[in-house]
């Protein structure tokens, strides 16, 4: 079997890694890899490949031999002329398109589950989030019939207030979800309410978007300040509904 030239090997390795990045992000993670991130990764990849391929003097020579030959070997005149025409044009085109401004929106970073404060003011009271519990949770064991009724009531609160954005199936895809930025949370996702305590939800619901700390961009969150529209009991019931519907369990201090 003929050996693949070292230069071609290096190019193939880099190309393969590049394709792998794009495929992993686009297909498996279902999000386009940010250009800046890709550039950074590829910088390290190219540097790494270069280091490996120039480890000994001989391997270095092998690597650059084809390039050297192309430029210096008189017998390669035809191909050299082509490269001398194409390469500068390619560089010029690349420079042209990269100097054109892209007019992209500024990148905005945002923490989705910011650390809760230890106490929170709502309904003209102060709540200690470390000890705050859902007053209705106990009925789950003590009086299942009553609990079921409370869940239904929570469902009515949810459907007449929350489903517009968070979706009737609690999947974050309500009729108006597409018009919001940031998008509404998907409660079915294991990364949302399943990771949180009921007291955290109470805080987030009662004080809404404007109650968020700065790292969570309170100015852009469309989450209403629900203490304006719901009672304390309604908030606790709707929290029951969220867990009941999705089958998630709230986190509690005892288990942590």
């Amino acid at each position, binding site marked *: 079997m003929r050996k693949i030239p070292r230069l071609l090997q290096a190019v193939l390795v880099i190309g393969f890694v590049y394709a792998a990045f794009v495929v992993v992000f686009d297909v498996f993670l279902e999000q386009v890899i940010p250009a800046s991130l890709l550039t950074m990764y590829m910088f390290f990849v190219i540097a790494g490949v270069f280091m490996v391929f120039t480890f000994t003097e001989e391997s270095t020579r092998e690597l650059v031999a084809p390039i050297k030959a192309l430029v210096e070997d008189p017998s390669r005149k035809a191909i050299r002329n082509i490269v001398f025409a194409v390469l500068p044009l390619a560089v010029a085109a690349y420079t042209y398109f990269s100097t054109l401004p892209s007019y992209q929106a500024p990148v905005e970073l945002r923490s989705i589950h910011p650390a809760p404060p230890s106490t929170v003011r709502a309904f003209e009271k102060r709540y200690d989030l470390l000890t705050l519990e859902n007053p209705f949770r106990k009925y789950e064991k003590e009086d299942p019939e009553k609990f079921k009724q409370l869940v239904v009531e929570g*469902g009515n609160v949810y459907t007449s207030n929350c489903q517009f954005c968070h979706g009737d199936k609690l999947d974050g895809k309500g009729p108006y979800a*597409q018009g919001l930025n940031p998008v509404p949370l998907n409660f079915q996702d294991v990364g949302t309410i399943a990771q949180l305590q009921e007291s955290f939800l109470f805080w987030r619901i009662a004080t809404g978007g*404007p109650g968020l700390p700065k790292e969570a961009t309170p*100015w*852009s969150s469309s989450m209403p300040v629900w203490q304006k529209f719901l009672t304390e009991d309604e908030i606790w019931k709707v929290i029951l509904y969220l867990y009941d519907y999705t089958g998630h369990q709230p986190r509690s201090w005892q288990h942590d």
Partner: protein
Amino acid sequence: MIEKRNLFILVVTLWTGFVAPAAAKSGDPDAGAEIYTQFCIHCHGEEGDAVTETADRLNPPPRDFTTAQYKIKATDFEDDFPNDLDLFRMIRDGMPGSAMPGWSDVLSDQQIFDLVAYIKIFAGLEEEELGPSMEYGEQIAISAESIEQGKRLFHEGDRCSECHGKEGRGDAIKGLKDDAGFRTWPRNLTKPWNFRASNDPKDIFTRISTGIPGTQMPAFADPTSDKQLTAEERWHVANYVNSLAKTERVVRPENTVVKADHVNGELPDAVDDPLWEKTEPSTFFLVPQLIGEERFFTPSNDTITARALYSDTEFAILLEWDDRTKSIPGDETAEKISDPEIAEDGVAIQLPVKIPEGSEKPYFGMGDATNPVTIWHWKSGTTDTPQSVNLINATGFENIEQRDAASLSITAQGFYQDGTWRVIMKRPRSGVDKEKDIELIEGKAIPIAFAAWDGSNSEQGSRHTMTAWYWLLLKPDIGARPIVSAAFAGFLVFGVLLWWQRSASSKRATKDV
């Protein structure tokens, strides 16, 4: 992105077409009852009568199953009821443009047929022999000629345009209520994402044939109607309606920036000035105002399109949105179409008073105590007062300062045609008062948000539609920079190559000597 979505739709259509059960399966009503209690009662009610807390906040309201009145059916127009497959499909795919979601990601086909069996009981339909699907005749493929034919039939004797408007935007010329007395809006046919079924020609054919029971949408297969259409004609009309969806005013989620082009000299005053055509439109979803008292749940507008231009001294923005009614209080026709009381139509843009340096912006709902916003609010006028523009500065819903728009030379002019408002707003780029007026600086990303009011849909004050924050960018003039740098880089590389080759061959020459 667009292509991706089209591909997605194609895949879904192929897939659903593929897996759609050819024949209805029989369902188990008892199993259905359980699923119904879990997923459907909050809208359709335990008794199936749609008497729920939610129902009041939804337009269209959830279906009342006790009436056996269904909108979407593919049975013959003379049949009173849809068949099991019709119901199956509506539950599986949902009804876009309403709160009714599709359930295919949660429920299996069998479970959906169980639901069908159960909901029929509410109206005693379980004993009915439900009809087969209607006759479709020979489907006529989409072509320019067919679309042309369809267009003629659509307008002939105001057959469809009477309700759907000249351009299909649903700008009816008469008031419409459904059988239950709710206000219905004729569908805006240029917005296929609101079709309860879909805008596939076959679905449109079905709707044209049977109408939409319970609403004003007539059945055109009905031979007793003087506007009746043959099957062949219905295919032409369906192809035409399908073609109406091709508009440039669609939301592209990746486009969050309104890019203003630079113009030398005067900015245009006319909405049809060719300069506007050359600027890139950005379209955003409008959502009802649900964050402040009084909340608003039943919007009629769902998108707004913005284009912007600027000169050395002035800034202009063209706002376009579909509104089925030109709401001019005092105007007789306008008042006849709507429910008794109408208010002015309106549109507004919101900007921060200071362009944010970091990531912090004012609260998108009219600013906050530390970050004021400025709002330019145009109103359509009444029969007694002309169109007007108001200037408002706010630091939250409750803290609003009304200012004189004229003092800042803000002007706004609106034009209504065939179901679309077009409003141009203008302002000098620098304000009068540094503390209150934003300086519109080129090259900076400026947060911008929009709001709209449909006065014939009881929208007034806090009852309106709005958007999240997006961006406005006055595109800086880049001049010849890209060309110059490209030429420079190209020549540099060429030079280096040449030098390398030359020095190598001269080395060879010395060696040879």
